[in-house]
C-alpha cells in the first residue's frame, strides 16, 4: 500500500512585522511545517508501522527553501519526498487551491497511492480546500476534517469533526483523500537518528512540465494587504508586570470578581 501525504510549508509573521507592498516583508517571516500536515505525516507513519508493506511519500509544492521542512517529514518516518516548483509561482501572491490541486494531482497520478492524507488547512493562508480539490481532480473519494481513522480493506472508517463537539461517523471508499485534523494523534519529534537518515532519503524535484501540468495565469490577485483595524478599542495596561497586574486586579474587582 502507498500513502501520499501533502506537506505544506507555512509562514509565520513575527510579533512586530512590516508589510511591503502586497506581502509581509520576508525578514519578519519564519517558515515551518504546517501543523495540520505534521498530524497527517504522523498518521501515515503510524499506519506504515502497524501494517506490512506501506510506503509513505510526501509531496510539496514549494521553492527550494521548503526542503528543510520536507526533511522534517522524512526525519519523522516518511520514506521519500517529491517537491514541485516553478519560478513563475514566485510572483503569485496567493496560489489558489485549484492550482495547488492540479500540481499535487500530477504527482499523485505518477505515484498512484491508495490513500492521500492532507491537512485540514494551512496555518497561514487557511483555504481549507486543497485536499478536497485534489480528490476531485483525481476522481478519488474524500473526507474532510477527520479526527479518527481506521482502515479496513477498501474502506476508511473515519470520524469527521463537526462543530460543537459532534462527530460524524462515515465510511469512505478507497482510494480517497482525507484531510487530517489536529489532535488525531500525537506527532512525534524526529529522533537524531531520524534526522540523520532523512539526509539520505530521496527528495525528487519536478517542474509542472515534468508532470504535464500547464500553469495558467493566477485567477486570484491581491489588491491590498493590511493589518486589520481593531474593532474593539482595546484598553492596554502598561508598565511592569506588577503594575499591570495591579491595574487588572482593580478592574476585576470592579467587575465583581473575587474569591
Amino acid at each position, binding site marked *: 500500500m502507498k500513502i501520499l501525504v501533502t506537506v505544506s510549508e507555512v509562514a509565520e509573521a513575527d510579533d512586530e512585522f512590516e508589510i511591503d507592498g502586497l506581502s509581509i516583508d520576508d525578514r519578519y517571516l519564519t517558515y515551518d511545517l504546517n501543523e495540520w500536515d505534521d498530524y497527517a505525516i504522523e498518521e501515515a507513519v503510524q499506519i506504515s508501522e502497524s501494517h506490512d508493506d506501506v510506503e509513505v511519500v510526501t509531496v510539496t509544492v514549494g521553492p527550494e527553501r521548503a526542503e528543510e521542512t520536507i526533511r522534517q517529514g522524512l526525519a519523522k518516518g516518511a520514506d521519500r519526498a517529491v517537491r514541485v516548483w516553478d519560478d513563475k509561482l514566485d510572483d503569485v501572491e496567493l496560489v489558489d487551491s485549484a492550482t495547488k490541486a492540479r500540481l499535487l494531482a500530477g504527482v499523485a497520478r505518477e505515484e498512484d497511492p491508495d490513500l492521500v492524507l492532507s491537512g485540514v488547512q494551512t496555518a497561514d493562508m487557511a483555504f481549507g480546500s486543497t485536499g*478536497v480539490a485534489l480528490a476531485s481532480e483525481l476522481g478519488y473519494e474524500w473526507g474532510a476534517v477527520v479526527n479518527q481513522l481506521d482502515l479496513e480493506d477498501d474502506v476508511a472508517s473515519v470520524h469527521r469533526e463537526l462543530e460543537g463537539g459532534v462527530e460524524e461517523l462515515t465510511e469512505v471508499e478507497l482510494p480517497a483523500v482525507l484531510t487530517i485534523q489536529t489532535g488525531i494523534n500525537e506527532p512525534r519529534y524526529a529522533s537524531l537518528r531520524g534526522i540523520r537518515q532523512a539526509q539520505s532519503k530521496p527528495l525528487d524535484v519536478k517542474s509542472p512540465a515534468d508532470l504535464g501540468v500547464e500553469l495558467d495565469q493566477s485567477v*486570484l490577485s491581491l489588491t491590498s494587504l493590511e493589518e486589520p483595524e481593531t474593532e474593539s478599542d482595546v484598553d492596554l495596561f502598561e508598565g511592569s508586570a506588577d503594575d499591570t497586574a495591579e491595574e*487588572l486586579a482593580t478592574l476585576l474587582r470592579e467587575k465583581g470578581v473575587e474569591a
Partner: protein
Amino acid sequence: MSDVLAVTEHRRGDLRDESFELITAGRELADGSDGDLHLAVISGDVDDFADELNREGVDAIHTVDRGEEFNHDIYRQVTEQLADEIDAQYIVAPHSVNGLDYAPAVAQTLGYPLVTDIVDADAEGGLSVTRELYNGKTEADVEVDSERAFVTVRPGEWDATEGDGSATVEAFDAAIDEEQVRSTVTGFEEVGAGDVDISEAEVLVSVGRGIEEEDNLDIIFDLAEALDATVSSSRPIVDNGWLPQDRQVGQSGKKVTPEVYIAVGISGAVQHVAGMKGAETIIAINNDPSAPIYDIADYGIVDDLFDVVPALTEQFE
C-alpha cells in the same frame, strides 16, 4: 448569467444559523450583479426548511428531498446540476466543516475559482472579496479574475435575514448517479460531558499554547483558584491531552458567555473566537501585540504571561 446560488445547511433536523446569514451574503452578491438569489435545500425535511428559509431577499428555493443528513456526494451532484440549471454566476456556502467537504469538489468540476472564508464581498463590476491571511494577522482584498466564482462565507460576519419572503418554492429533479455516492454516513457521536461545565462559568481563565508545557498549567490553576474562576482552554491544550475535551472553547468545542473571559497565551484564531466572542468582558494576556485576540479584547496586557499571571494571582492572595 447573473444569478446567485446559495446552498443552505442543516443538521439533525435543524437549519443551522449560517443558512440565514448566507441569505444576506447571497443577496448582497446578487444585488451587485443584478441577479436573483436562489437557495438550495438538500436532504432532511426540505418543505419545512424551505418554509423557514423563505425570507426577504430570496427569489427562488429549490428543494431536493433525498436522505436525511448531509452527504457530500449528494450535495456535490445537486449543487453542480443546480448551478448549471440556473446558470449561476456565483455559488455561496457557509465556511463550515460540511462546506469544506463539498465546495472544493464542486468548484473543481465546474471550473469556478474558489475563495474560502471570506469576511466581505463586493460584486459590483467583477468580484472582489476580503479574507484574512497569515494566521489572522493581516487582511487582504482579493480580486477574482473570473466571471464566475464559488465563495464560502465566514460564520457570524453577515447578519441573519429577518423579514418574510415571497420566493417560489419548487422541487428540483436532480439526477443522482448512485455510482458516484462512495461514502456513507453511519451515525453521530457527541463529546461526553465531564465534571465541569465551562459554559455555566461566570469567570473563565482560558489557557492557550503560550503556556508551552503541561507543568506550567499550575500557574493557570493557581490564578483560577485565587479568582474563584473555572479553567478553559484553546484547542492545542486539548490536542496535547493536557486538559479534557470538554474544556475546549471554540468552533469544535463549547460556546461560552461568561461575565469575564481571561485569554492567557491564546492568539485568537477565528475558530477560537467563535466560541467566546459573546463574553461580557474579554481580557487578553499575550506578548504579541499583533495577535488577533486584541481585535476583540476589551482590555489587554502585552507582556510575558509567566510574569503577569503569578503577579495577578498574588494580587488576590
